[in-house]
């Protein structure tokens, strides 16, 4: 095939020339990337292994907590050390996100619950999360991470209720109805309507949009 640098159109020989250039630059970039990767792997292969720890959650584990705004929610987790050596455990919570797109960066009360667990012992970790007044009611999903372990993530759901008991109760009741097998569409709508109302009220009261709130939420 004759390769030309004639700038006539995209197709034909000029297209082939550009394609050659593209392939060559892709190859060079990939070569550099793979060489770095290979060098790192080579270094890593001779480094001594540090015996690690794997987190083994019970089947279908999902930590749940409920709390009203301006109050707290407590996440509790029992951690058992089945290894033959002591283990330092530091649980942390990731940002929690609601279905409406609101992101909550929970601040935990008090000191970081870090513990040194002896072999064969079990301890309960309690993370107390302060629920901000501006946080719209709803279910917030995220994870609890046990820092420095492998496969260290545990699913977390925090249900934030409205501090005004009437609408909170209404939401909870409506959600409970919807959860039943024969849930009617009306209950679901009522719950949604009430949640939206509460969210709007909270946003208005706070005077600003909470972080991560979508437009019109």
């Amino acid at each position, binding site marked *: 095939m004759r390769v030309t640098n004639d700038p006539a159109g995209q197709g034909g020989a000029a297209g082939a020339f550009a394609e050659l250039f593209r392939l060559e630059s892709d190859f060079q970039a990939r070569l550099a990337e793979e060489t770095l990767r290979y060098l790192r792997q080579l270094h890593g292969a001779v480094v001594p292994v540090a015996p690690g720890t794997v987190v083994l959650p019970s089947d279908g584990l999902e930590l749940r907590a409920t709390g009203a705004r301006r109050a707290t929610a407590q996440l509790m987790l029992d951690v*058992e050390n089945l290894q033959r050596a002591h283990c330092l455990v530091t649980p942390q919570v990731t940002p929690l996100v609601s279905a409406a797109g609101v992101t909550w960066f929970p601040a935990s009360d008090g000191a970081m619950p870090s513990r040194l667990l002896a072999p064969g012992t079990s301890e309960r970790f309690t993370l107390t999360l302060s629920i901000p007044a501006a946080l719209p009611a709803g279910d917030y999903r995220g994870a609890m991470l046990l820092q420095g372990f492998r496969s260290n993530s545990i699913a977390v759901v925090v249900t934030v209720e409205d501090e005004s008991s009437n609408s909170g109760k209404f939401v909870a009741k409506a959600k409970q109805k919807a959860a039943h097998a024969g849930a009617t569409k009306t209950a679901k709508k009522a719950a949604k309507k009430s949640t939206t109302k509460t969210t709007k009220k909270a946003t208005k009261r706070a005077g600003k949009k909470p972080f991560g709130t979508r437009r019109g939420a």
Partner: protein
Amino acid sequence: MNTPADHVSLVDAPEEAGRTTATLVASLAARLATLYAVSGAAAVGSIVAGFAAIGRDYGSTAEGARLRRAFERGRVASNGDALWSALHIKRWASLVPAAPLLEQLRNDMALLLAPNLGETLALLPIPGEPAGGLADADEPATEFLDCLLGMYAFSRDMTTAIEALAAPTRKDDTVMVPEGGSGPPRGSLLR
């Protein structure tokens, strides 16, 4: 009250020998022995990359994300990135594998509490296990902010661990009374 479902167990990684006093001693000894075989740049680079790896993990937590945002708002992040780039720290630290610093800290702390350390040390030399194929080659580049967050998270864990080591035998007495009475010493020479 917690339901039985809110429970996790900490177990050994299936592809490894597990955390015993012997393997922890072997790992520490091998780490020290490796220092003679690698350059200072490789050793320090590996530690820097290790801090960045902790920082990436910690940055995904609520507390870490808040701290990260605070750095990003000020001049810390931009100045740090400028230094990182001008001194080629990113390229240097991205070339070497990240040291598993938290695991090493946890393992070293466990050795200090091991009841059979004396007998295990008598068995030395115990061959260390190289990481081999277990080494993670697909780590992201070592960034300045990750390293900063990692150093914070690591030092917090280290402080907690050292406090926990001292806790069982620690006394917070502020006054010490000598044994055998509290009066001044008496004798013919002391007048």
